[in-house]
């Protein structure tokens, strides 16, 4: 029992130290002020009365900034931990490697994404509360869709970081992977529409979960499997990252 409590305490310590590193001021503070302001301005320069549209307008630019934050702070930051030997120190703790990998995933991807995406939403809910309060469930659903998309990007970035182990390379590669993914989503959607291939178009659309969530809430045409592509891809990438960390990863 005491060993289990000690293990949990060690996990908590690593989580706390790593979150403090990832979310250290002033980077996060400046980013959330700008994103919350941008989201609120975009939503209030037009009389948005639909919670679906309000959440999309606020979260679309926020997701781009979140992806870049994850590429720099999470991916390049994790490579710095590897290069500086701090990750080596984490791995000397009597905790399973997979647990350390899960803690890094939570502290470097899930928590930052959840916080950055929530900030503009809270701001627009305060600003337009009386207009949007009827659609809190829809706003929560859209938020989760954006969060899943951010977790997919972040988990890919972590896999890149533990594979290349170089701060600059992992940062650059993560940004490149992000833009390649977005380009692929646009190309498949466009080509699918142009050649009349429903499958190609739907795969392209499904690569961006917020679009499918938007279609679902707006009663537009979508298929249920499209809602599962991004979560499915996220699970696959996370499994690949955990497997790599537990079996193949070697500290420098």
């Amino acid at each position, binding site marked *: 029992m005491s060993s289990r409590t000690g293990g949990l305490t060690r996990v908590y310590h690593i989580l706390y130290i790593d979150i403090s590193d990832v*979310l250290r001021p002033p980077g996060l503070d400046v980013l959330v002020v700008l994103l919350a302001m941008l989201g609120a301005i975009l939503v*209030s320069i037009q009389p948005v*009365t*639909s919670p679906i*549209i309000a959440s999309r307008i606020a979260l679309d630019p926020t997701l781009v900034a979140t992806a870049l934050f994850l590429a720099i702070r999470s991916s390049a930051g994790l490579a710095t931990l590897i290069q500086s030997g701090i990750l080596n120190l984490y791995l000397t703790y009597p905790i399973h490697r997979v647990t350390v990998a899960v803690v890094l995933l939570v502290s470097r991807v899930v928590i930052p994404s959840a916080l950055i995406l929530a*900030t503009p939403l809270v*701001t627009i809910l*305060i600003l337009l509360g009386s*207009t949007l309060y009827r659609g809190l469930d829809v706003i929560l659903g859209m938020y989760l869709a954006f969060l899943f998309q951010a977790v997919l990007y972040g988990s890919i970035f972590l896999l890149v970081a533990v594979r290349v182990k170089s701060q600059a390379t992992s940062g650059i590669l993560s940004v490149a992977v992000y833009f390649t993914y977005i380009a692929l989503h646009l190309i498949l959607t466009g080509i699918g529409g142009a050649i009349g291939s429903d499958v190609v178009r739907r795969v392209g659309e499904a690569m961006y979960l917020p679009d499918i969530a938007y279609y679902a809430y707006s009663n537009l045409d979508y298929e249920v499997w499209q809602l599962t592509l991004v979560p499915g891809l996220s699970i696959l990438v996370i499994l690949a990252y955990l497997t790599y960390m537990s079996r193949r990863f070697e500290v420098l």
Partner: protein
Amino acid sequence: MTLPSRLLVAISIALVISSIVADLYGARLESSYRNTIPVGPGTTLFLGVSSVTSSGKVSVEVEGASNMYYMRLTGDPYTLVQQFRALNLNVSASRPQLDLRAGVAYVVALIQASPAIVQALSLLGEVIPVVQAGGSTPVIEARLATGDNIIVIVTEASKPTVSVRVNYSVEGYSRLAPLQAAIVSATIILVVASIELLRRRGL
């Protein structure tokens, strides 16, 4: 400062600045559109009013029409105009005019007269003929939810030019005034400062 305190301060700063910007350049609750279009024989006038991001009440007045229809539709009216082009109908469409601050868009197009227009539209929804009583100018009124459109089709004009007047008023929208936003922000900062003070004193 703790992470929640930092985020709350960020939200309160963003709230004040965005409410000031919204007050200066923000949403308007009224929008109007006027246009006089020369409609020759063998031409159909197409007018679409689309509530892009808002919802509200629209009234459309058409002067110079002897036969016209209207219908409600969801989707993009500009795409509909492009679909008429796909039916090999000669379409001269003006670009859609977006009133961003009212969240509404207007599309006017001249389409080669064809019974296919009303037939094609009737596949998408109920096409309602507008009855004109005693030569008075008919007024079409409707409430539009976000993403809804009202389409007006003039298939026969009584004058060489047709005048359209559209008034749109936003409904169901309100936001904090800058003073209210400043009060909310000041309250948040006061709460954060109190919590931080208590935390540092170890209470």
